[in-house]
């Protein structure tokens, strides 16, 4: 079929049924500009049509939630008039096509979601996943993504404070780039997106509009790749962090002066989304003069202008009396602005060009009437066979050899090749910097602290989506508890394969259930999230990769928060929490030593989770070192402390397997004395001393040798 024969709606990524949905809604055939708007707004990336009905399982109700899911970012109350805004977003497909710009514009987008709420963005975290680094293409992608995040984040002036990286074969053609951002604001600075006030003016601020990303939302994020997808390439957007920095400052000044009624950032589906959502959220309509939009490229059609995903743009709703001042502030910050429309009683969104009506649709319908699919789900065929491939772990191990192999893994070794490319110090808030379990930020002038961790575990989720996702939540909670914070709010990024594959839907539904259950067990509200589907190339879906972004809160912060570099000669080592139970499915040992992915991850006890998390957060006020035991088990966790503290350790005799067991809900505590004051199960297992990592009968390795392996793991592969 040639392009002339393929119907327009099919070319724009819509199905016949969806097209019928539009004609039913409008009571007629859509005009070209209207079809353009529906095609982007009803795409998977914008409408969440395959996942929406399942997302209702998440619980977002707690007294400290100020804004839950549905706005541009979740907002929670930190007391004394302080609020925090948080959000996580994916930019997966664009990062495969052009890694630097894909990742850069991902950072730009998530920052806009934060400052559109009235908050100054103060931190970014990146959770990134690639195929194995033996493949040049994957090295190229890692290099590009990191340089994109660094290039944008550093230049826009927001510190990147942490993240995580995973390598697995199924991400080779579908890298995942998830970016989380956090902002803080005073209560009276909160701004929402609902347009109100008939006659109020819509002002477009920021970059001129060009053909960037035309069809990006609908084409890139909502479709799987085939080899040689050349025609999808021109859709990649280029980021301008300088423009974004000016936009942040201009917007914060507008908020400070109370000049905006509402504001929305422009992301996927550009002007279509911003105009319809601000109007729809406010139960109003809007009249838009598309010719007023400031353009970079002449000769764009109204449909193209409506679909454009040019970066660094915001839509502000302003009272007529304030328009001049808004334009003046924009001009002072050297930002372009155009007055493109006005709020009407509604319910239509009407778009005019050259005096002609080119689109007239019910404003709310673009978002609210998007299809909601209840796609079939089916327990995957691979599960039983995978569970049958039990990890074989010998009773006697050469701990030095195994540890050496694990430390040489680029996802376990030193990640400072990545983190040192990011400015992590700007704003002077960083109390615990990249390289520890989580980040800890202070709020100057208060005793309050915010902790953040991003966590994912795609292999474990593949073997058991429900248990895997629940365990990610508990691990993330521990990663903030070890620095003294109580888990306070969560955002999730659900990265899955093709939802038209019932096995993928099953994974998604199970993962949502596991995550929702775990959050309820520890009273953590889910205040927002992002779903990225169609992560599939040539018929192969990615491993299911739900990513958690956890915000922890403490007030007051510990005087001396635990850090991995505070172990001193003679200090005792305890392990608190669960007894090791032989939990090796999806463990680093099984993956690296046995090259196996099999077995079933053990279940987790919600009650034990609550107790261990609470005990850990309490211990953070006295212990010099606390460290969550996760990938690689006890041995890797102890080694990490050893490297940062410059000190070896001697362990009591332990079953060898316990050294690499990945049973969850286990924390290492290091401190002076011989007894630990805590109510959860705990056991003293050794002492930090000397320059050898001594695993008793299981063997030993010198601190220097082990640290050399760990330091080189990632850089050596990136030359």
């Amino acid at each position, binding site marked *: 079929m040639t392009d002339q024969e393929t119907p327009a709606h099919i070319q724009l990524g819509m199905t016949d049924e969806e097209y019928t949905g539009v004609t039913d809604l409008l009571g007629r055939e859509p005009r070209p500009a209207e079809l353009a708007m529906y095609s982007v707004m009803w795409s998977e990336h914008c409408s969440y049509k395959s996942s929406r009905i399942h997302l209702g399982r998440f619980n977002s109700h707690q007294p400290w939630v100020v804004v839950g899911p549905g706005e541009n970012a979740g907002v929670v109350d930190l007391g004394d008039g302080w609020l925090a805004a948080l959000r996580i977003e994916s930019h997966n497909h664009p990062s495969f096509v052009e890694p630097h710009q894909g990742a850069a514009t991902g950072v730009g987008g998530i920052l806009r979601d934060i400052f559109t709420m009235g908050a100054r963005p103060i931190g970014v975290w990146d959770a990134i996943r690639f195929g194995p680094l033996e493949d040049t293409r994957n090295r190229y992608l890692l290099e590009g993504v990191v340089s994109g995040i660094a290039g944008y984040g550093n*230049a826009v002036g927001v510190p990147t404070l942490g993240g995580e990286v995973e390598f697995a074969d199924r991400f080779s053609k579908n890298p995942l780039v998830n970016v989380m951002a956090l902002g803080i604001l005073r209560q009276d600075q909160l701004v929402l997106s609902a347009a109100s006030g008939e006659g109020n003016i819509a002002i477009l601020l920021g970059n001129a509009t060009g053909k960037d990303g035309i069809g990006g939302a609908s084409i890139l994020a909502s479709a799987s790749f085939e080899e040689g997808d050349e025609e999808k390439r021109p859709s990649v957007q280029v980021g301008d962090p300088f423009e974004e920095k000016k936009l942040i400052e201009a917007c914060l000044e507008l908020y400070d002066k109370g000049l905006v009624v509402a504001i929305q950032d422009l992301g996927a589906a550009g002007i279509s989304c911003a105009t319809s959502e601000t109007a729809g959220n406010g139960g109003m309509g809007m009249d838009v003069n598309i010719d007023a939009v400031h353009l970079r490229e002449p000769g764009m059609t109204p449909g193209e202008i409506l679909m454009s995903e040019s970066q660094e743009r915001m839509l502000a709703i302003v009272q007529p009396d304030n328009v001049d001042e808004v334009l003046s502030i924009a001009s002072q910050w*050297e930002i372009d602005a155009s007055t493109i429309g006005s709020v009407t009683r509604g319910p239509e969104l009407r778009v005019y060009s050259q005096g002609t009506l080119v689109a007239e649709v019910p404003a709310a319908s673009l978002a609210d009437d998007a299809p909601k699919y209840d796609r079939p789900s089916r327990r995957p065929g691979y599960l039983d066979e995978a569970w049958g491939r039990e990890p074989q772990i010998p009773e006697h191990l050469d701990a030095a050899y195994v540890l050496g192999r694990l430390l040489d893994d680029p996802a376990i070794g030193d990640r400072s090749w990545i983190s*040192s*490319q990011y400015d*992590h*110090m700007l704003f002077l808030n960083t109390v615990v910097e990249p390289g520890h379990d989580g980040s800890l930020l202070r709020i100057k002038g208060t005793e309050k602290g915010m902790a953040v961790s991003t966590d994912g575990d795609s292999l474990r989720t593949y073997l058991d989506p429900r248990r895997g996702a629940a365990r990610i939540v508990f691990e993330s909670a521990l990663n903030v508890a070890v620095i003294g914070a109580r888990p306070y709010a969560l955002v999730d990024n659900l990265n899955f394969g093709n939802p038209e594959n019932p096995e993928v839907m099953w994974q998604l539904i199970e993962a949502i259930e596991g995550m929702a259950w775990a959050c309820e067990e520890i009273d953590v509200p889910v205040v927002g999230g992002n779903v990225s589907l169609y992560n599939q190339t040539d018929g192969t879906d990615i491993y299911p990769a739900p990513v958690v972004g956890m915000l922890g809160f403490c007030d007051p912060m510990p005087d001396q928060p635990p850090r991995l570099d505070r172990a001193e000669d003679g200090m005792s080592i305890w392990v608190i929490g669960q007894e090791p139970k032989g939990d090796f499915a999806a463990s680093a040992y099984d993956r690296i030593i046995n090259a196996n992915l099999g077995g079933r991850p053990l279940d987790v006890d919600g009650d034990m989770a609550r107790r261990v998390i609470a005990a850990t957060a309490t211990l953070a006020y006295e212990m010099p070192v606390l460290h969550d035991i996760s990938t690689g088990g006890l041995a890797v966790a102890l080694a990490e402390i050893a490297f940062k503290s410059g000190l070896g350790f001697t362990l009591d005799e332990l079953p060898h397997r316990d050294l690499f067991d990945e049973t969850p809900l286990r924390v290492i505590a290091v401190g002076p004395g011989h007894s630990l004051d805590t109510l959860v199960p705990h056991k003293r297992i050794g002492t930090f001393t000397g320059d050898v990592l001594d695993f008793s009968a299981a063997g030993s390795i010198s601190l220097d040798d082990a640290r050399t392996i760990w330091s080189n793991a990632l850089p050596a592969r990136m030359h």
Partner: protein
Amino acid sequence: MTTAVIVFPGTNCEQDTEYALNMVGLDAELVWHRDTDLSGADSVVLPGGFAHGDYLRTGAIARFSPIMKEVESLAATGVPVLGICNGFQILCEAGILGGALVANQDLKFICKPVTLRVESTDSVLTAAATVGQVLQIPLNSYEGNYITQDSPSHNGDDRVVLRYCDTDGSLTAAANPNGSTQAIAGIANSRGNVAGLMPHPERAIESILGSEDGRVLFESFAASVSSVTT
């Protein structure tokens, strides 16, 4: 009288710099690059960031901002002027200090603590330090590689005030993070009132953030301010 902290579009360390100046008793005022009035200022700091996105060349567009004429005049009268990171780059592009900053040797952005050795106390940046003193200060830049090719500043020869060194104070290849000529991290003009450095001393003024070694540099600046005005 206040310390003028110049803000260009894209500057992002002005708040941190103001915080540090306040800590040593200086009253700071943020001045927008399009202003032309520095009459209330007894000292000037050009903070870090990405003025004009670092587009074209870092500092190349900022040097033509209206405020820079005033900065240059004040510098000529002996007023203390300090350029930190991007600020240093702007002073070099403007010819107020000699040399240029180009891309780090391994073409990667570097954000990490580095150790610096004080080479001279004859500057507003190092007056309160001692020669040979080793300071741990964070570096945070992509174009931190200092090169000098006999390009003197408008005011004669510059002097080196800070060099990258290892924790013992030795100048080794490994201790030079970005390939800077002669491991130069900071310089001053011959008069000593204009200084520039790539690392960020404002990020090392409180122990909770990892190091307080930046304090002595800000204290030098504060002492220079009062000694000029009294």
